[in-house]
């Protein structure tokens, strides 16, 4: 039972193409077995009326056996007949057509299932639409058509000519329709698989990015912990390590980042920024947050902002060699909008020659932009670095001021 249910379980299909091929196998088996089912009621009558009963039964048996065999093979292989099987299948259909006049009474060749050969040939044509080799398919179709003409022989009365022509055209049209059906379905399956592969790759990259974002600050803190330092600085780092540890645990448990923007409780902006500044008190952080009193942001934005601000200050600690860091929060127009500026008076860097590290690129710029916040980073050698975060992207990339900054912008939101 288990193997049977496994045979039919669509959810286990590895690819859409495999699923389509399996569907083709069901289609093929259905058509072929359906044809046999149509042939069965007329076999007794056909044999009785046939000029050569044994020959008729042999032909009928060959057709039925071939149809069942093809059905079983396609169901087991989970794909429609291949080129070799199709050639053999076509060959048998042609042989049956050619032998038809020998085993059928002339008056039985049209409009009855005692003359099963044309219907059998049509089922072969339909199910062979999936043959990949175009030449084999076209040649076989031509051969069947020619054999049908042979089948008709010279016994077709003028009143049956139109029916005979219609049958030939039916072969051709059904063959084309079946081939287009197989072809287009396969193409859709290919596109679907390509899309699935791309989606999987994007998901993998996104997960990798999330892991990097989640781990980056923790790794930086651990690195600082391994370096020599006094007890006071180590105690501060241990506090930060605990924060990062909680964050990483949350990530590993799959509970981080559940809230999306606009959902969940809002958080006070001043407490959020102030909390991070306190963790970096040893950097001589001056936090001027009074102008942002009362501002609130979605919890998801607050979480991203806290992580980004932590990453910025870690960068300052590791790279900037700054004497002072000024964190300034300002409420701007329209109501509820705000600008957060982090400026250090450290060594700065030349954005043209320095590639942004993971912290700035992903934890700061990438994460904040994903949360709908505008980010600008401006730096120049010897002039420190200014990171500006806005509640929504604005035309100015650099630090807010009466005029555009003249130092080179490392990262900026497009206007």
């Amino acid at each position, binding site marked *: 039972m288990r193997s049977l249910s496994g045979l039919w379980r669509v959810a286990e299909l590895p690819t859409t193409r495999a699923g389509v091929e399996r569907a083709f196998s069901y289609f093929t088996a259905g058509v072929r077995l359906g044809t046999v089912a149509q042939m069965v009621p007329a076999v007794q009558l056909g044999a009785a009326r046939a000029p050569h009963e044994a020959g008729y039964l042999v032909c009928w048996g060959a057709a039925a056996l071939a149809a069942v065999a093809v059905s079983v093979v396609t169901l087991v292989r989970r794909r429609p007949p291949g080129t070799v099987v199709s050639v053999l299948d076509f060959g048998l259909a042609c042989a049956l057509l050619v032998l038809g006049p020998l085993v059928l009474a002339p008056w039985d060749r049209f409009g009855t299932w005692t003359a099963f050969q044309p219907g059998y040939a049509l089922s072969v044509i339909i199910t062979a639409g999936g043959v990949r080799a175009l030449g084999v398919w076209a040649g076989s179709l031509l051969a069947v058509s020619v054999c049908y003409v042979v089948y008709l022989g010279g016994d077709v009365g003028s009143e049956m000519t139109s029916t005979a022509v219609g049958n030939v055209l039916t072969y051709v049209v059904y063959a084309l329709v079946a081939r287009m059906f197989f072809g287009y379905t396969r193409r859709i399956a290919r596109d679907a698989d390509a899309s699935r592969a791309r989606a999987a790759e994007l998901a993998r990259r996104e997960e990798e990015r999330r892991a990097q974002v989640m781990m980056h600050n923790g790794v930086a803190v651990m690195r600082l912990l391994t370096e020599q330092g006094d007890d006071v600085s180590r105690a501060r780092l241990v506090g930060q390590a605990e924060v990062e540890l909680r964050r990483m645990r949350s990530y590993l448990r799959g509970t981080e980042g559940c809230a999306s923007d606009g959902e969940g409780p809002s958080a006070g902006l001043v407490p959020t920024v102030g909390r991070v500044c306190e963790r970096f008190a040893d950097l*001589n952080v*001056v936090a*001027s947050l*009074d*102008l942002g*009193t009362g501002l609130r942001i979605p919890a998801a934005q607050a979480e991203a902002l806290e992580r980004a601000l932590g990453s910025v200050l870690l960068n300052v600690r590791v790279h900037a060699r700054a*004497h*002072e*860091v*000024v964190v*300034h929060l300002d409420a701007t127009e329209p109501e509820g909008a705000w600008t957060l*500026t982090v*400026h*250090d*008076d450290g060594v700065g860097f030349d954005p043209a020659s320095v590639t942004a590290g993971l912290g700035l690129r992903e934890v700061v710029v990438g994460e904040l932009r994903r949360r709908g916040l505008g980010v600008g980073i401006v730096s120049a050698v010897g*002039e*420190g670095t*200014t990171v500006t975060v806005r509640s929504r992207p604005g035309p100015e990339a650099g*630090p*807010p*001021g*009466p*005029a*555009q*900054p*003249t*130092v080179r912008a490392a990262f900026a939101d497009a206007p």
Partner: protein
Amino acid sequence: MAVVDDASLIRESIGPLMPGLDVVAAVATVEELVRRSPAVDVVVLDLHLANLEQQPDARQGIAAIRTLTHRGYRVCVYSQEERRFVLAACVAAGASGIVSKALPRARAEELFLEVAAGGTVVPQQVVGILEVLVRRDCITLLSERQRQILHGRARGLSYAQVARELFVSESTLRGYWYDLTRSLSDSLRGLTPGEIEHALGLAPGDLLEFWADGTTDKAEATEPADPATRKDWWRIGRSR
């Protein structure tokens, strides 16, 4: 310049360590400096001068600043104090500069010279408070250009960076900044704690522990401070 610091090591070493300064008096108390009355461009003053062993009744903090400024001295506070309202109170009391003892020696020397030359050195924490007071219309005497300068400086931008944004030379910007900080300090001096509390969104009375009431201004500085003036102002421990 003169140095007032109860730590002898600090007051005696400033001269040798900062060759650009001419230290003509290095004393332990404001009372001693007033008694000597040296002619100096600036007095470098530690905020916390009282200590139980040597000078338990020494005048210190806001009272010390006011005592010196009333006698015409330019005062540059030299302390490890970091709380912004304490620093703002020093500016309000008349200090022309506040320099952190945590700064590198060369930078501290540079700032002392700046104050001695007539400049004003306002710590970043106080610049932030001043910006809030201006934005909340508590201080209204600023031109548009001065507001722009304050805007940039409050965000920590250097003179050079603000000067570039305003298309002026750095020296011009420094001149603007000196004028601006002097004006702001004067304005801050004229504000009551209640007005500042209101502008900053603080509860009434929150600043009283930082803002001196000025009752010591007229006290005789050559005498030790009376017990009322040497209360544990700002309710802090000793900070160097």
